[in-house]
């Protein structure tokens, strides 16, 4: 069994209490505010891009969402490549991690970082290092929610479209 099943000795417990006392608190409230601002800003930019596709490129609102996401991903990859995204993220926290730009950053940063280990084992193998769990658990969660939805709305079964 690993050590996390072990009880800590009194000396260890005492030290952990002391260490906790010395640990600077994460500024949670400020972080939330920054995340709200930056997250909101990214969404506003996304909305603006979507409007552009609707007004100038003739997409309807639903069809405009795909190219919008693509543009946001592109911008995020550019900022990651320029070494800027991680600096924004240290300030913005969840604000830059949660939107689709954060997801693009996880993939592109891993791909860039592991390029030195080759295209197949490096870029290909390690690109999903951080994004992988998001996809796995995202799909599992979607599946579970889908099943629950089906059980609650059995009449939709086979409805298609």
């Amino acid at each position, binding site marked *: 069994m690993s050590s*996390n099943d072990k009880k800590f000795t009194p000396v260890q*417990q005492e030290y952990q209490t002391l*260490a906790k006392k*010395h640990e*600077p608190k994460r500024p949670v409230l400020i972080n939330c505010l920054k995340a709200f601002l930056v997250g909101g800003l990214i969404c506003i930019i996304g909305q603006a891009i979507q409007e552009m596709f609707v007004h100038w490129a003739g997409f309807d609102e639903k069809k405009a969402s795909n190219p919008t996401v693509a543009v946001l991903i592109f911008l995020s990859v550019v900022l990651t490549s320029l070494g800027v995204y991680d600096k924004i993220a240290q300030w*913005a926290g969840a604000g830059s991690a949660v939107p689709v730009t954060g997801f693009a950053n996880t993939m592109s*940063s891993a791909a860039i970082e592991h390029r*030195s280990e080759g295209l197949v084992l490096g870029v290909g193998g390690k690109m999903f290092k*951080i994004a992988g769990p998001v996809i796995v658990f995202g799909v599992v969660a979607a599946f579970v929610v889908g099943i629950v939805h089906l059980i609650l709305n059995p009449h939709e079964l086979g409805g298609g479209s």
Partner: protein
Amino acid sequence: MLMGKQTWKFENRPVLIGAATVVGPDEGDGPLAADFDLVHPELDMQQKSWEKAERLLMEQASEFALNNAGIEKEQLQFYVGGDLMNQIISNSFAARTLGVPNIGVFGACSTSMESLALASLMVNSGASQYVLAGTCSHNCTAEKQFRYPTEYGAQKPPTAQYTVTGAGAVVVAATGEGPVVEYATIGKVIDLGIKDPFNMGAAMAPAAVDTIQAHFNDTGRTPKDYDLIVTGDLASVGHPLAKELLLRDGVPMDDTTFKDCGLMVYDVDRQKVQAGGSGCGCSAVVTYGHLLKKVAKGELKRILVVATGALLSPLSFQQGESIPCIAHAVAISGGKE
């Protein structure tokens, strides 16, 4: 030789005849910039990978150390070194370039004093005339191996530390001019159950405390005997913790100056390094770049460098293990008494 339980006394007074340090841009932007032999303006140092850049740091520091010592590569008999990379590859590639018999060591960020202690032991015992001790770290290789890709946007907590990009090397000789190594106290692995790899200062503080107390017990010295006692990389969280523990145990640390290399290498308030510096290079560049110069000039008569290391691996912390830590102390004096 052995003094007390875990301290070596070097009667034959091994001399540090030449040292050199090479650092990256952030260290070059810090308060000790003028003390380094070479500052690289870019993190990649025109290399194809971070690992190659780290290796270059070690190779350059070794070369400059030999120059500063005024000896030829052929005179050098052994190289004792290590680093943070898996299988200490930076050390091995630097040793390949150096072409000198090599002893690779691992003590995480305590490697600087671990290698210096061993090199001094070899010289003191007559096993060698000239030994090079050195270590290196690179911010991006450490991020890549222990944390996330360097460009990944993860917010770091205020307890996190910033790995120093830098290498330090020193030539230990049986005779010559320079600061003298008096004692080395080899630390025990101490683990008080801290599991957070973003709070290594707190994890390592008890190891530093244990080694400092062992050093005083073994040698009969007290803090008053040192102008400066410096820990390796406890930074703004671990260093006050270590001081509190020492004072609580009745060690009069107020009789000396008690500092931390992780807080000296950067301007912690201005540079975005969270709690301060860390990494093998941290204590190496501060000791070999900054402190040895002060000792040589006589500004500091006697110092105790307590390099601290967090002996975790990416595997061990993912498996929920706590962080085993170690600290090695080396006492260096001006040698003019």
